[in-house]
């Protein structure tokens, strides 16, 4: 199948199979910041925003994302122009191997769009679909709080 997907604000022509998932399509077309983890919707490494909502791209058939706004982590900030959330993850030491980080950052972004001042419980609930096997979450939650504080100031 062929279609045009709107990824990070740009229209991108893509080719994909009938039962292909968005994760594979994105990676096949160069969006390798979307990580391939469990492929079961459990780990959140492949998380993207679909019309602003965090979803596991391994659970989304590409054919159903036509016409939707797809945002990967590079859509909110880059290496040279990082988003506040990305800076805060580094400052808080919430990044080790980095595999879960794109998903964590996007989940945080979606949370703070809806709720600029989340409680610990609200952070844990929002990040419930993102697993990290390195940091143990304390620093990640710290990074989310730090992001909330900084985003309010700016």
């Amino acid at each position, binding site marked *: 199948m062929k279609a045009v997907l709107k990824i990070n604000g740009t229209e991108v022509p893509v080719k994909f199979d*009938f039962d292909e998932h968005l994760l594979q399509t994105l990676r096949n077309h160069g969006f390798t910041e979307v990580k391939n983890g469990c492929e079961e*919707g459990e780990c959140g490494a492949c998380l993207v925003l679909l019309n602003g909502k*965090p*979803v*596991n791209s391994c*659970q989304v*058939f590409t054919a159903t994302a036509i016409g939707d706004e797809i945002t990967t982590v590079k859509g909110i900030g880059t290496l040279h122009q990082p988003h506040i959330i990305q800076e805060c993850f580094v400052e808080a030491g919430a990044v080790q191997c980095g595999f879960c980080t794109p998903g964590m950052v996007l989940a945080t972004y979606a949370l703070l769009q809806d709720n600029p001042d989340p409680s610990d419980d609200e952070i844990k609930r929002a990040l*419930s*679909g993102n697993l990290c096997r390195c940091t143990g979450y304390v620093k990640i939650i710290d990074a989310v709080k730090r992001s909330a504080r900084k985003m309010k100031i700016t």
Partner: protein
Amino acid sequence: MSEQKWYYTNSLDEACELLRDHTVLPHGGGTQLNNIDLSHIHGLLCLKDLNLNYIKQTSQEVEIGSMTTYADIVQKSTKISTDNILISALKNAANTPLRNRITIGGSLGFIPQWSDLIGPLLALEAKILLIGKNAGEYSLSQFWRHRDLLKSSLITAVRFRDFPHHAYHYRDVKTNNDMPLFTVSTLFDMDGERIKKPHVIIAGTRDRVSEITELENYLAGKKISELQESEVIRRVKVTFVGKRVTDPDYLASKTKIETWRSIIKAAENRL
């Protein structure tokens, strides 16, 4: 086999026409379709343009469109009491990104073993609206017993009465993020101090869902102070299939204890 196709429509009539072909499956959020073999089907019908993502209040009832996601039901609804048993169950179901994809219609179409949805909806005496070959309104318990109603038909909405109730939804999980091994949904009204119209639904059993009618009959008309733990436990008769992580007999025993605890917690919760 001809080439597999995706179908897109914004017309319910056209959707019904397409579903007359049993090898075309409806796609809600897609999370269950990921678990089945799609090699034998001719196509998938994308339902996202059918305007079935809504929550509205009719005279006495709440109606939820079948394409409404768990997240939208929990976060966006001002039409359902925040403490309704359905809300308290769905806010803990799966995880955040999955709650943004799982639709109420898709869950009812498949009723997965781990569903957090079926128990609360049965307890709320929900009804299902179908269009297509078997168009009509069906009680969820009727729909559950006659799954062939779904052939060449499409779930468009779920309706239930949103009324103040005593309820508790227990999920048996190792961590919050787990799929539950079983759930116990307890709901009743009170007539003064006496229990009225009790529902006790256990999901995840050998039959997937079991309504514990013997226990419901015991509870009806009793004061909470009159309930005896041993009498409650004796009436919870469910069996489980062997699961990878635990023993079916252990689950059956645990269900009895958690059902008793759920009744007590429901009595304390005025929703």
